[in-house]
């Protein structure tokens, strides 16, 4: 059922674009970690290191009109979707120029302009929302796709099962993207799930599914193209399990007592940027000057975002209770 146009375009330009997006997320979050230690960013900060290939492989496959529901580890999703890095960082600073006016912070990035329906800090909490977004589209006959990202920890929540059942029962155009990074906070997959082949759970609800190496950005893109095409054509849900790994701690407060350093080291050799860059180099598709250019462009964008965040302003405390309810149009 895969149309030829659904295959990744393996042009050099496309490949460099994927590499750049992954490097962009990685370097941005490295800066976030640094800003966190400098207390510019507070609260919980969940970094995406190691998982970049999922967002970078999947999100550009979506159309502008499609919708995205994300989790609290959503910086990468927001950046790839096109939420400006400036407003994302200003949000983490808590400034009113942030993409959620400083009301949401790292875990609650929202952006109406790009149909980005938010980070959600409740594990599994975004799944029912994705059902409703897709239900609205179905009832109106729109050909939109709603992509719902969640971790494998969410699979233990009742809302996961309620949502998959509703999506299949009502034939809703939802692309479920499970980012299986093997740890629900500090609890390993085998300790939290009786069935560790997450993809198989979709079958119980008669939802077509596929598992993909989430460390391989090309594999993710190819799978995402198949998945989005299937949802768009069939108007039925599709389940994509991306097998990945979180190289950093769950959050900035996590001492990682639950896993061996050796395990993390082993995964570092499989991480998506090193792997993809190495493959491009081996095939002479990327040159040192390409890498230098990418790094320079990313550094400039990050510098601009930091400057934007620093220059951002604090919302007057007099406005504290605004946006609890809609305000009359003035």
């Amino acid at each position, binding site marked *: 059922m895969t149309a030829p146009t659904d295959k990744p375009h393996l042009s050099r330009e496309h490949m460099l674009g994927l590499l750049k997006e992954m490097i962009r997320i990685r370097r941005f979050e490295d800066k976030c970690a640094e800003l966190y230690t400098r207390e510019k960013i507070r609260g919980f900060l969940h970094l995406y290191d190691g998982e970049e290939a999922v967002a970078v492989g999947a999100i550009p496959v979506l159309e502008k009109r499609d919708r995205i529901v994300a989790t609290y580890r959503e910086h990468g999703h927001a950046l790839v979707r096109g939420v400006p890095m400036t407003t994302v960082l200003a949000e983490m600073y808590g400034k009113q120029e942030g993409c959620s006016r400083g009301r949401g912070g790292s875990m609650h990035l929202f952006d109406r302009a790009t149909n980005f329906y938010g980070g959600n800090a409740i594990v599994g909490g975004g799944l029912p929302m994705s059902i409703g977004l897709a239900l609205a589209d179905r009832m109106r006959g729109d050909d939109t796709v709603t992509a719902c990202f969640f971790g494998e920890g969410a699979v233990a929540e009742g809302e996961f099962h309620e949502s998959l059942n509703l999506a299949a029962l009502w034939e809703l155009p939802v692309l479920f993207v499970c980012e299986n990074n093997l740890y629900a906070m500090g609890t390993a997959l085998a300790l939290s799930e009786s069935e560790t082949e997450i993809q198989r759970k979709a079958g119980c609800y008669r939802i077509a599914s596929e598992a993909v190496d989430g460390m391989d950005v090309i594999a993710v893109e190819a799978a995402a193209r198949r998945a989005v095409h299937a949802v768009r054509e069939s108007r039925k849900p599709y389940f994509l399990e991306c097998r990945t790994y979180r190289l950093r701690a769950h959050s900035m407060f996590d001492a990682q007592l639950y896993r061996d350093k050796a395990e993390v080291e082993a995964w570092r050799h499989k991480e998506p940027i090193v792997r993809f860059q190495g493959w491009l180099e081996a095939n002479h598709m990327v040159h040192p000057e390409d890498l230098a250019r990418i790094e320079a462009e990313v550094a400039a964008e990050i510098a601009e975002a930091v400057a934007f965040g620093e220059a951002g302003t604090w919302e007057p405390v007099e406005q504290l209770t605004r946006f609890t*309810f*809609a305000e009359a149009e003035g």
Partner: protein
Amino acid sequence: MPPQMTQPATTEITYRDAMREAIRDALRRDDRVFLMGEDVGRYGGCYGVSKGLLAEFGAERIRDTPLSESGFTGAGIGAAMAGMRPIVELMTVNFSLLALDQILNTAATVRHMSGNQFGVPLVIRMATGAGRQLAAQHSHSLEGWYAHIPGIKVLAPATVEDARGMLWTALQDPDPVLIFENVMLYGMTGRLAADAGPVDIASAAVRRPGRDISLITYGGSLWKTLEAAAVLAGENIDAEVIDLRSLRPLDDATIMASVARTRRAVIIDEGWRSGSLSAEIGMRIVEQVFWELDAPIGRVCSAEVPIPYARHLENAAIPQVPGIVAAAKAALGRV
């Protein structure tokens, strides 16, 4: 004497039928509106509210759901965010606790957390209250808990007019609105104007004016309180009865004006006393019109017990007319 005004034609209607008329009207007016919940379609609604609507509007708009309160409440949130105007029916407030995460953590927070980019124009209806011998897991009155939450509005229609009119107003609201329907009211009849339409959802109503004491209540307890007021009238006590109608936001102005006039207040609330809506109202009175009071504020609430099955125990657990009369007389020093 001025000529008699022509009274608008009225019809006798049950609260249940008034609610159904409200839903039917909403479905006709706006094709973005749909009703979703457990047994709302083929069964006709757990309390018979949506009977007949499936045949009239079809299964897309009268949508039976699985027993997935959190899932379909969240689906209502998503659909509302995407431009629809869903009405979600949760069978009872007890079951709504399975959807509390979606109501509190998502519906109530999205506008604020998104910096005003997304709103959730969702209406959630549910039954509340005791009196049908359904025991503890079907009989509680938790609307006061919901009234604790910023970001949602909480309504308690007590009359057929409000049952008919509040839904449309709620559907026009850009934010989530919860409507609590007391189970004992569904079969109640009242007269409704033939042209009855939307009502305001922002203010309390003085259902019985009086000079001597303010009896403040809402929902199913309104009718017991009016009955108590009639008993008190027989003893030369002229009670004013306030129907809150909206539990969040509370209409402080109507409450305080009444208490300032009567100088005494008793709050009747089918919720439990500890940490209750009645506690909130009492405290607001103390904060705002303490110097107008001539007596301590009284409360008639449910006993601090899960609602029991046996009829005599159930009746004893929730506010009743003699208890309201006694509390009013105590506030007046007429024991």
